């Protein structure tokens, strides 16, 4: 970003620390809570789709397959839902001091990243053990995580500043994220979905129209399949990250002028 932000990097650090501390204040399990949630979800999906309904019986190690999708999705959705009200929550600061307002949503998304990285750090060795994916492709994982962070950061900036202007952005987001979860290939593999085999357009739609899908696909092919993601996926992921962060910053800068008056 620009030099102004560089000068305020200590502020950014302080805000992240403050958020982290408030988030884990008074919880004995701390960061472990954030592992419990995806594990429970994974358990439920494994039970329903892996054992009861069995539509994806040909996916090996279905739990690991689902778990990776869930933690990527959780990072994405949590980033947006916590970024949306962030400017409003910090209105006291915005109204009284001049500092780059981007720091507020950026700090919130970064706190989510910290949790996400902790989960990835726990899941990666297990995935390597279960799936034998200690392959060169693993070297691409950091790049994918950076891209995912930038993607979430850009959208986080957008929803935070929009919510400051229009207070119904957060509820709309809440309403959209659940159906979004179900069309995202988290508990299924698009190519093997029963309804997609004779409707290729539907498969393409699910794969490419949903910007989260390629991110999950990329992380999953590295951790679960041990393969370098396809070229199309890689290009998509990097482009989406770039567009999101540049566009998000551009929109934020355009809409932030009146923040002190609006909040």
């Amino acid at each position: 970003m620009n030099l102004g932000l560089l000068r305020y990097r200590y502020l950014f650090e302080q805000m992240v620390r403050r958020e982290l501390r408030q988030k884990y204040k008074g919880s004995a399990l701390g960061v472990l809570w954030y592992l419990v949630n995806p594990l429970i979800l994974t358990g439920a999906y494994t039970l329903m789709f892996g054992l009861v309904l069995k539509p994806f019986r040909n996916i090996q190690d279905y739990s690991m397959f689902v778990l990776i999708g869930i933690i990527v999705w959780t990072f994405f959705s949590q980033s947006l839902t916590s970024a949306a009200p962030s400017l409003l929550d910090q209105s006291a600061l915005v109204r009284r001091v001049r500092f780059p307002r981007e720091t507020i949503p950026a700090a919130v998304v970064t706190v989510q990243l910290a949790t996400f990285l902790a989960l990835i750090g726990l899941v990666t060795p297990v995935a390597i053990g279960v799936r034998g994916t200690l392959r060169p492709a693993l070297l691409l994982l950091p790049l994918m995580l950076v891209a995912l962070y930038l993607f979430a950061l850009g959208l986080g900036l957008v929803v935070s500043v929009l919510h400051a202007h229009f207070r119904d952005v957060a509820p709309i987001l809440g309403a959209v994220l659940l159906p979004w979860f179900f069309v995202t290939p988290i508990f299924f593999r698009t190519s093997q979905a029963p309804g997609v085999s004779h409707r290729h357009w539907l498969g393409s739609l699910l794969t490419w129209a949903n910007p989260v899908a390629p991110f999950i696909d990329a992380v999953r092919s590295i951790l679960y399949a041990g393969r370098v993601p396809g070229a199309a996926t890689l290009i998509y992921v990097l482009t989406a990250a770039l567009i999101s962060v540049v566009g998000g910053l551009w929109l934020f800068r355009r809409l932030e002028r009146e923040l002190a008056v609006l909040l």
Partner: protein
Amino acid sequence: MKLEPGEIVLEHASRAFSVRADQGRTLKGLLIGRRRGGVEPPPVQALRDVSMRVGAGETVGIVGRNGAGKSSTLGVLAGIVPLDSGRSGCGGRVVTLLELGAGFGRDFSGRENIYLNGALHGFTQSEIEQRIDRIIDFSELGHFIDVPVRTYSSGMFVRLGFSIAAYLDADVLLIDEVLAVGDEGFQRKCLRRISERIAAGATIVLVSHDPGAIERVCDRVVVLEAGAVVYDGSTAEGLLFYHRLIGTLDASPQDARRPDTTAPLHVSGLELRDSGDRRSQIFHSGQSARIVLSLQAQPGFSQATAAVALELRDEHGSTVFRTRGEPELRDGRADVAYEIERLALLGGDYDLAVAVADQQQFARVTSFSVAHEPGAEGIADLRGSWKELAASDRAPTLPTP
């Protein structure tokens, strides 16, 4: 606009605010609101074509009635409120003290809040570390600096907030009304610190209702009325203009905070001391405290004793406690202490007023703060414990109506 550090420029600045009970816009409001545009009240013009140029090292006081645009002007100068038209700019590093408590995370200690506040103003960790000892010293918060700020009284907040702003070494210091809170000793110290900043070449813009503070600090006054500059010039003239404007030219009531040394008997010294007999303005509930007083009589004063009254008031001005004493005078003066074994007050800010002899008015007022503590609220510290009773000890059953 290229400005020297400390320079401030406002050119034809105008700004209007729309007044709506519900500030938040919704998408629905945006879609429907267009069709019934007539419902919305007309916007309030907070600033109309305001122009001023302040050179580095100047000290400007902004006065005006409520709603005259004082705070908007500061908001614009601080770069927080954008203008509808015109230009504004401050050169160099700007530190704002607009409202207290900005950036104060409630669960964070005073020390952590110093770091957060410094960071908000664009300072790096090492820049803050260079200043933190002076900030803590100035605040006189002592060991309270490492206590979460949720236990602070508002007087303690003022101390912390002002100390931070005063020691960040800004080129431009924008201060809104905050000096009005806090005790007298600290206010005087703040004004002294402001003079130091002025001597070091900082530019200061002070918005205040207190003409006294403006008079002591500023060499230039801007009077705002309905968003426009109606006077810009020397302080003495400016304050006169302001008093005429608001119709309070007649003598203001006697300032109880300054001693009347011509009275037959006056309070020449007043100090609060803590359990370690150190001067302090901040106390714990249940601590011991001493009120140290010096009384001075005029040569012709005939009585052998001096009648004094102490009155303690809470932050709303209600009397919490009042007592009298008659210390003996020796060679025309008396030095006494009123000793409080256990300060049975809960967290808050208190005023202590001292009156002497025949005077109706209280001659001296000082303020102090008590830190908040868990387990009780209010003024009086009657904290006790709950105990289970044996059957024989039970309260008699109340008759049922």
